[in-house]
């Protein structure tokens, strides 16, 4: 357990959104690919996800450091490695974690040829950018950083724990074009964010005219944290009560939001296919159990100025320390606010271009998976692009993929991805049907799979579905 915690801390730092599912995107054999493109090709007639087992997704990433970087065996000192990493990493590096658990997922093709799908899933997202200046201050102190301006704007982190209810439609509106949309209702159980902060802290060596040796200055500080679902947890006793309270909000008990997913799939010709989707275009409106904190102002600390007042025996002197504390509180007040706030979901955009070859014919006798004229190929290669809009800047990834259908019951997809984490991320996914039971397993970072400590990100998705194919 201890090691597990260390891994989480070292590798992920905390919990975020590293939601690129490059293997699952366009992997039409898996019904959950519809969650990445509501306008994707639907091969089945109906599907029912096995409750709580249809999609399990965990993902953690750290763009600047791996567990191996810190904890590798060797004769050098672990503190020297941490020092080296702190200075190597940039303030745009980040730690992320995402976890999704589908509670239910289902879909069916209606008589009007619209494929309806819906479900409920729970999601946990976290991102924290590396606050390099504050890390240096905590790790090294200010002695060797006189006149260096420690920047508060590097503090940027968000976290969400929510339930998502969704319902989508997918229709092939021409031989070439399939479009889809999904409406989402978010029920936030717990949320916090601290973004758009500003200000700096600097220790300057004073001159002859200065009151004291140094001037410790907080300048133009404006640091805030917005929370919802937190205030009511403070009074609770123990993890059990907290967990119970949070889970109690899972079903329409929290703050609500709405969003949409949109997507399409277009056959440019027999071989080439273009697809795109925009996911989680929406916002959550936090109004219940909201508590926000904001510290702002300017202050220069010179130390304590002794006055040496003439006093009679027994008379107390000035309360210098209390006065100093009061002065700081007055100049940089920490306000607790209860105003509602709107949090935009981190929208994601997927784009895919694929080239298919080798007409798929599962049985050799008939084109069983291709009765509705979908252009299924035995093999596909292509390019995918992914963008997620993060607090500081969009993060992008580009993937090359190769997809192969081995048989009507087995297909696989491999990807090579370049992203913020690495230039060597190979992923693979497998979808297998055993009768009507579909099982899929997807993972990435295969190069580091034999030693996960070296991976800067890890992702795993798996699930079971009950699929009824087109007859």
């Amino acid at each position, binding site marked *: 357990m201890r090691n597990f915690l260390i891994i989480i801390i070292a590798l992920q730092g905390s919990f975020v959104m590293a939601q690129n599912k490059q293997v699952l995107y366009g992997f039409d054999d898996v019904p959950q690919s519809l969650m990445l493109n509501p306008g994707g090709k639907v091969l089945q007639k109906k599907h029912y996800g096995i409750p709580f087992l249809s999609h399990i997704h965990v993902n953690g990433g750290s763009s600047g450091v791996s*567990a191996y970087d810190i904890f590798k065996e060797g004769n050098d000192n672990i503190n020297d490695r941490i020092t080296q990493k702190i200075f190597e990493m940039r303030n745009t590096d980040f730690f992320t974690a995402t976890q999704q658990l589908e509670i239910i997922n289902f879909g069916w093709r209606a008589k009007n040829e619209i494929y309806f799908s819906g479900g409920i899933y729970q999601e946990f997202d976290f991102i924290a950018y590396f606050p390099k200046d504050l890390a240096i201050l905590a790790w090294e*102190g*200010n002695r060797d950083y006189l006149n260096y301006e420690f920047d508060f704007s590097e503090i940027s982190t968000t976290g969400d724990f929510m339930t998502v209810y969704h319902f989508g439609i997918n229709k092939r509106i021409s031989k070439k074009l399939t479009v889809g949309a999904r409406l989402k209702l978010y029920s936030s159980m717990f949320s916090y964010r601290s973004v758009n902060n500003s200000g700096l802290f600097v220790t300057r060596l004073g001159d002859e005219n200065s009151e*004291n040796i140094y001037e410790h200055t907080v300048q133009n500080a404006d640091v805030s944290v917005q929370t919802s679902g937190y205030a009511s947890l403070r009074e609770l006793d123990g993890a059990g009560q907290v967990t119970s309270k949070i889970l109690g909000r899972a079903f329409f008990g929290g703050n609500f939001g709405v969003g949409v997913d949109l997507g399409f799939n277009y056959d440019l010709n027999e071989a080439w296919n273009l697809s795109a989707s925009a996911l989680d275009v929406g916002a959550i409106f936090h109004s219940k159990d909201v508590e926000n904190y904001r510290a702002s102002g300017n202050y220069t600390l010179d130390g304590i100025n*002794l006055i*040496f007042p003439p006093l009679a025996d027994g008379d107390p002197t000035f309360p210098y320390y209390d006065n100093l504390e009061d002065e700081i509180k007055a100049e940089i007040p920490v306000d607790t606010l209860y105003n509602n706030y709107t949090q935009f979901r981190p929208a994601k955009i997927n784009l895919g271009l694929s080239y298919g070859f080798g007409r798929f014919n599962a049985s050799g006798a008939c084109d069983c998976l291709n009765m509705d004229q979908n252009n299924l190929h035995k093999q596909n290669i292509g390019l995918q692009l992914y963008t997620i809009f993060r607090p500081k800047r969009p993060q992008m990834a580009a993937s090359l993929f190769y997809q192969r259908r081995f048989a009507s019951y087995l297909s696989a997809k491999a990807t090579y991805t370049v992203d913020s984490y690495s230039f060597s991320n190979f992923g693979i996914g497998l979808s297998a049907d055993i009768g009507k039971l579909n099982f899929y*397993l997807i993972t990435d970072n295969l190069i580091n*799979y034999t030693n996960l*400590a070296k991976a800067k990100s890890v992702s795993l998705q798996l699930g079971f579905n009950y699929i009824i194919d087109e007859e």
Partner: protein
Amino acid sequence: MNSNFTAVFCMLFACLFFSSCIRDTDFDQAENITLAPIVELDLIYFNIEASRFFDTINAVPILTVRDTTEIRFLDDGTLQESLKRAEFYFKFTNTIPREFQIDFQFLSEVNDTTYTTVTSVAEGTLTAPVITEFIENVEGEGILQLTQADKVVVSATIPSAEEGLKGTLNLKSKTTYFLEH
């Protein structure tokens, strides 16, 4: 094919998946992680006029003046655990033509003396201020005593004073805290 190929493929995939592990790492090293910041922080400062050492009403010298301030951060539990060394730096600038003895007496919350130090300040002149620097390094047992304190009494003692004595005794000070978490 394809069934053989499929079986091999699936087995390879399963092997790969289940063979994942974490190697060549030693997470016990986490116990050796030490945050060791070195923090520079202003302490106290003052300007005492020479006239403060003479009671003009009663026409008698005041040979010792003192003042007290709380420094509550010093006996904070976290600092008690993490402070390994403290280096006080005092810089006196004296334009009073007298030497001074300066006493720093650290007191606990119940006014027990936990740590003391003393220094002398060279005499100066109005036209030629004299700077006296004093560094007090505290570590080991001294740290245990120092971090029991939550206030400090500063006393300035002058050997003699008379009406009309001119000048100022100025102090600037800071502490370097060597911490280990």
